[in-house]
């Protein structure tokens, strides 16, 4: 059944990470990215690796979900690793053949970079796995609302994102309906050359656009009727509140930051 479409990759379960305030999760994800780029050696990096592992365990999201999100990144990890191995010439030479020289320094760096990318992907996946998309847009809106000073309407952007999330399943259903209707009139979407197939999409795309515009038009009426007049003077039913757990998490991340700085200082930098 097509109405089982779920947008984003939210993994439904109950865990301390799921319960955290979306704003804090967003802040911590950004903080995490900053800290991981501060790491200069394996000692500091291992702190962040540990932090990632603990967060994942706490989230109760199964490991296979994270492997799934890593899959598309594997080529990038491999390419950077190979480039690092061949280009970095530091430390002891392990192998020298024709123009290729592999050094311990190159191997270390390649490994370091790979772990760093993996941690980055895991952390951002963790955010999307544990936070409903609408809450995420909400969090972005609330965190960026000070930008109002610069006349940037964060509210409008967030509203557009929410409406997009709301209507994507509806439009996917619509595509399915129209496709079936045109198939019933003998439309052929499966055979022919690439250009034929693109042309075959026209009988689906035109009705889809017509319908999307009609929906947008009617929706704007409905929103006006429900007193929508932009973000000014708007309140929210769901208040976001930081809990003790949120501050605890922040504390842990700040401690990790301190740890990374200290470890960077005491041990030689790898990169």
């Amino acid at each position, binding site marked *: *059944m097509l109405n089982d479409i779920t947008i984003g990759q939210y993994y439904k379960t109950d865990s301390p990470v799921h319960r955290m305030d979306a704003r804090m999760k967003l802040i911590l994800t950004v903080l995490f990215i900053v800290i991981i780029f501060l790491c200069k050696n394996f000692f500091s990096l291992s702190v962040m690796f540990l932090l990632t592992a603990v967060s994942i365990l706490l989230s109760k999201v199964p490991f296979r979900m994270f492997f799934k999100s890593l899959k598309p990144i594997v080529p990038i990890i491999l390419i950077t690793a190979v480039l690092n191995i061949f280009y970095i010439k530091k430390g002891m030479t392990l192998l020298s053949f024709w123009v290729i020289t592999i050094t311990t320094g190159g191997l270390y760096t390649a490994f370091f970079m790979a772990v760093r990318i993996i941690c980055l992907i895991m952390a951002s996946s963790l955010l999307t796995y544990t936070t409903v998309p609408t809450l995420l847009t909400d969090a972005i809106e609330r965190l960026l609302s000070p930008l109002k000073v610069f006349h940037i309407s964060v509210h409008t952007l967030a509203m557009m994102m929410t409406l997009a999330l709301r209507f994507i399943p509806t439009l996917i259903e619509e595509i399915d309906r129209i496709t*079936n*209707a*045109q198939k*019933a*009139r*003998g439309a052929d979407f499966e055979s022919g050359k690439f250009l034929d197939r693109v042309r075959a999409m026209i*009988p689906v795309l035109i*009705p889809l656009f*017509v319908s999307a515009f009609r929906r947008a038009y009617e929706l704007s009426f409905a929103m006006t009727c429900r007193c929508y007049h932009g973000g000014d003077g708007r309140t929210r039913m769901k208040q976001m509140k930081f809990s003790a757990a949120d501050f605890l998490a922040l504390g842990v991340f700040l401690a990790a930051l301190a740890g990374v700085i200290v470890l960077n200082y005491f041990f030689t930098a790898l990169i």
Partner: protein
Amino acid sequence: MTNHPILTTEDLTYIYQKGSKNEVPAIQDVSIDIMQGELVGIIGHTGSGKSTLIEHFNALKKGTSGRVLLDGADIWADRSKIRSVRFHVGVCFQYPEYQLFEETVAKDIAFGPKNMGLQQDEIDRRVSDALSFVGLSDAYKEKSPFDLSGGEKRRVAIAGIMAMEPQVLVLDEPCAGLDPRGRETVLRMIADYRAKTGCTVLLVSHSMEDVAAIADRILVMNQSRVAFFDTVERVFSHAEELQNMGLDIPQMTHLLLLLREKGIDVPVNLYTVSQVHAMLQSRLKGGNVNAE
């Protein structure tokens, strides 16, 4: 109507998400014979499986088990001929006006015939014929379908299916959302089409009055199974079971049943106001009633 089955299903079953934990049966063990030239009304409330059943008739869905036979031949016997099945069983889905896409009415109606690979003069003939079936003049040919009224759009979309000259025409709630005048026009149009072409017509409807007025037989779907498939008279004789399924019965049938309850011997196989009126007229004239 003949005794030659044009469309047959044998133990047709379709299960959503087969093999997963949340299997949902959409239709189960549906075995029916639709005869050449008959008009079958299909009723049942939303989720009863009627829409899924229709999608099997023109091979948009393939049964999890069971077969669909068109004129005696399994429609899935040769996968390369699936498209031709769709030309023989023309299905017009709910709110078909949302599938219109061409610049002109004529081009839109010609979409099906063109996909069939017909010659241009044959396509032109069919477009004209189809337009006249839905009661629109040739003046509509060059109009943009998007400039028409809701009811006219609906008729153009139905014409697009009729132009394929299918052996079986399936209409899924062709009157949904139309006003009474529009509903009446579309219903009359369907009855005329069938009278002129002798085609088999399947009509899905929520209106018991409409179905009773024009169908030969009625297929009642309930909880993914066939509840009844019989003549109008016999189906509506199960008034109580129908009501238990959450379905209505025609208002006139309801009236006659109430009269019977009050001990008045009236036939109950009448469904329209004029039928009941004629019956009562003859009863009252017959003098077996103490009219004043």
